[in-house]
């Protein structure tokens, strides 16, 4: 007796683009039964390294240790990626069939199943053991392509989840996005750290632990970092229209006055710190100009004040501007700016925001959320399109994730009608390495 197939023929379904997308891959409905391979990886626990181990390991680096490190990265990455795919699989059906989320899922999934356009991810599963220094060199190059191929993930996911926002409670949406972004940072830290250590050993034979250990700078000069970002920000031409189409005219870039414990240095990952400082100062500068242009065009431009405080366990950076504050009818509390849910932050579903996300995710470049990228965007070539990351609204959420990554915090206080105070608190990595896992 012929049993009716449990699956309706594709033809009889409403031809939504999502279904078209999924059925374009080989026998997508059979993916259910092909999950085994993935599950084998996902069943393994991730072996997280503590930051202490990362630093310690880095200090006493030699060739033998480097190879150990390489193989650790090699075996660890596929497991972590498998976990992410499982996370996606657990989202509501209606969310993952949304075209942009489906695209991201596809990105991760085909990598496990077959060679797709994301070769590296597929290859990481099958990468051979690394035994020599030259093996490691090749491996480092390979790692470079791995992360860049995934640069489309953040904007696509952000777009897809924003569009799915009606189907997900805000808490669930935000915690999912957070997990994806945090784990992405972890993978990046692992990879970048290993590559940096490899380069140091290749160049000097050892690691100079005073200046930097891999990606960790033991004596990062806070004031110098701020000044570096200010320099780049102020070098931007004034001419282009603001992302919201507002022309702040001749108002110059505001000065940044640094006070407090100005000689503070601390141990941190420079990339992360630079990203946050740049992003926060960029916002302050933009709002200061806009506010002055609208309300006080003929008065001297008030400076932005950056106060550095070295506490016993933390470093604080307070950035105070005279930019009018951030509470608007769309956003009732500053923390909502970190949310990806339209329930908390209505701008997530605004046409302009969605359009910008679409542009970024479909262009080849994607988004890596790194300082290097921020700088690239403001070079003459990048400046032809105004403030890309600002348009997609991911700068603040990413800064928040970087800030909280090692147990710090990012708080925004708005003095409506006057300005905003941003409080960045970062733990001194030198003193508190316990309990922080990568």
């Amino acid at each position, binding site marked *: 007796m012929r049993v009716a197939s449990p699956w309706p023929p594709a033809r009889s379904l409403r031809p939504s683009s999502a279904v078209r997308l999924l059925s374009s891959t080989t026998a997508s409905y059979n993916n259910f039964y092909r999950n085994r391979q993935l599950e084998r990886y996902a069943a393994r626990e991730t072996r997280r390294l503590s930051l202490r181990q990362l630093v310690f390991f880095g200090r006493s680096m030699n060739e033998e240790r480097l190879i150990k490190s390489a193989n650790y990265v090699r075996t660890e990455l596929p497991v972590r990626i498998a976990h992410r795919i499982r996370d996606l699989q657990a989202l509501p059906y209606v969310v993952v069939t949304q075209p942009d989320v489906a695209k991201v899922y596809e990105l991760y999934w085909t990598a496990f199943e077959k060679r797709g356009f994301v070769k590296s991810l597929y290859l990481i599963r099958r990468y051979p053991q690394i035994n020599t220094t030259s093996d490691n060199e090749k491996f480092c190059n390979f790692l470079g392509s791995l992360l860049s191929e995934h640069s489309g993930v953040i904007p696509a996911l952000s777009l897809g989840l924003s569009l799915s926002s009606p189907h997900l409670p805000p808490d669930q949406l935000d915690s999912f996005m957070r997990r994806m972004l945090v784990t992405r940072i972890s993978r990046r830290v692992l990879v970048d750290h290993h590559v940096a250590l490899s380069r140091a050993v290749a160049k000097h034979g050892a690691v100079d632990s005073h200046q930097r250990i891999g990606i960790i700078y033991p004596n990062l000069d806070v004031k110098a970092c701020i000044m570096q970002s200010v320099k780049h920000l102020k070098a931007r031409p004034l001419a282009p229209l603001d992302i919201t189409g507002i022309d702040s005219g001749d108002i110059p870039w505001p000065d940044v006055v640094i006070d407090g414990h100005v000689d503070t240095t601390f141990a941190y990952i420079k990339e992360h710190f630079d990203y946050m400082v740049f992003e926060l100062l960029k916002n302050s500068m933009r709002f200061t100009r806009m506010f002055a242009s609208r309300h006080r065009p003929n008065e001297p431009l008030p400076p932005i004040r950056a*106060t550095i*405080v070295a506490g*016993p366990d*933390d470093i*604080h950076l307070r950035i105070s501007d005279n930019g009018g504050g951030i509470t608007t009818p769309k956003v009732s509390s500053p923390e909502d700016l970190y949310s990806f849910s339209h329930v908390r932050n209505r701008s997530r579903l605004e046409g302009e925001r969605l359009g910008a996300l679409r542009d970024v995710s479909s262009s080849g470049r994607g988004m890596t959320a790194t300082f290097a990228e921020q700088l690239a965007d403001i070079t003459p070539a990048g400046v032809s399109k105004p403030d890309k990351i600002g348009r997609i609204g991911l700068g603040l959420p990413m800064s928040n994730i970087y800030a909280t990554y090692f147990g710090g915090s990012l*708080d925004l*206080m708005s*003095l*409506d009608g006057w300005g905003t105070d941003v409080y960045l608190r970062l733990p001194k990595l030198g003193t508190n390495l316990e309990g922080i896992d990568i």
Partner: protein
Amino acid sequence: MLRRSALPPRTWLPRGLSRCRPLHSPPPDRTSPEVISLLDTYSRLPPRPVPLSTLLSFGSPLSPESLLDSASYVLHELPRRLVHRVHSFDSLPYIVGTNPFIARTRQQYRSSFIALASQSSVDTLEDNWAFSQKLEELVKIHANDIPAMAKGFLESTRYMAPADISKFLDAAIQSRIAIRLIAEQHISLSRALRDPSSVSHNIGVVNPNCSPAEVIRMCASFVGELCEATLGSRPELIVEGVKDATFPYVSVHLEYILTEIFKNAFRATVEHHRAQKSTGPLPPITITISPSPCFLSLRVRDEGGGVPRNNMERIFSYAFTTAGRSAKGDSNDDDGGPYAAQHIGGSAALGTGLDSMESGDGGLFGEITGKALQTGLGTIAGLGYGLPLARRYASYFGGSLELVSLYGHGADVFIKLRSLDRGADVEI
């Protein structure tokens, strides 16, 4: 705006009570059946919030008729709120209720309730003037409720869980603010009608043109003197922002909030500077005034060293204070230290009779700090009620108060107050 005809008729009184009781006879004995009956009757009336706009409507415009309506309104609203205060005291653990400060406060609420509940109707302006003076008396009697309760609870920490104390105090303070508003509004209107020339800038509790800069100046001057007298020096206060901003608000509330915040900021600045053994001048305190469409925001920024992270939650709980205690903050001897003793000894012991009430502006400001100045003793550091109280007042009409600390440097306090345009849509 509540139509006057919708108010209960002026002759309404709870059943079972003679309308002809002369106004000045002594209140009935507290165990008398009449009192029990009064308590019972009013207890059955549920507490309910009333729109601020109703309260304000009696003064715009002010007339003999509106004033008598106001009196009727007060007689309608206050007894039921007072009886609930009495009940909350009655519900405290017995041992706490026997603490002299708690007992005295409870007794005062009971007496006030009886005085108002047994008040006959107010039918003429003479009646009202007497009534209004009676209200003023009651307000004075209750002037030191909060310090008294603070002292009482400090002494009772071993008998009551902090959460329960907080719950009691939150309700007590919230209710007290409402009772004061209702009473003061009527007092203010009565004076204004009797002697229009005495009216300074506004009729009633809400000042339509409250100037933050003005209030800041006043509070800073007072706290500065206190600071200098107690600690030997005082930091400068810099005012920035929109200095000529004004907004409709209950001025005394703003005074109270700023006084407490300034006390913290001034004291912290001087002590931190000393602890650092710094040689330069005291770092200034900066306050920024920022009006926005429905609110008026203030930011007070100091370099007083800030608050350590593990204290952050506790600073807004009642009776957390670093005054006069060891660094470890042990609470075995709950006398609150020398500062607390001075304060309570100064004001509670001296009782009532505050001259500052006459000016009409003294209000809370006068009562909390007036006595302290008079006795020459400072209370720059207090019972630890300053921050939670300031927050209660700030959030009373839908505003907020938040503190952000940069430990090792200083703290920022953000105060956001609702503009009370024609009462806005707030309820009390």
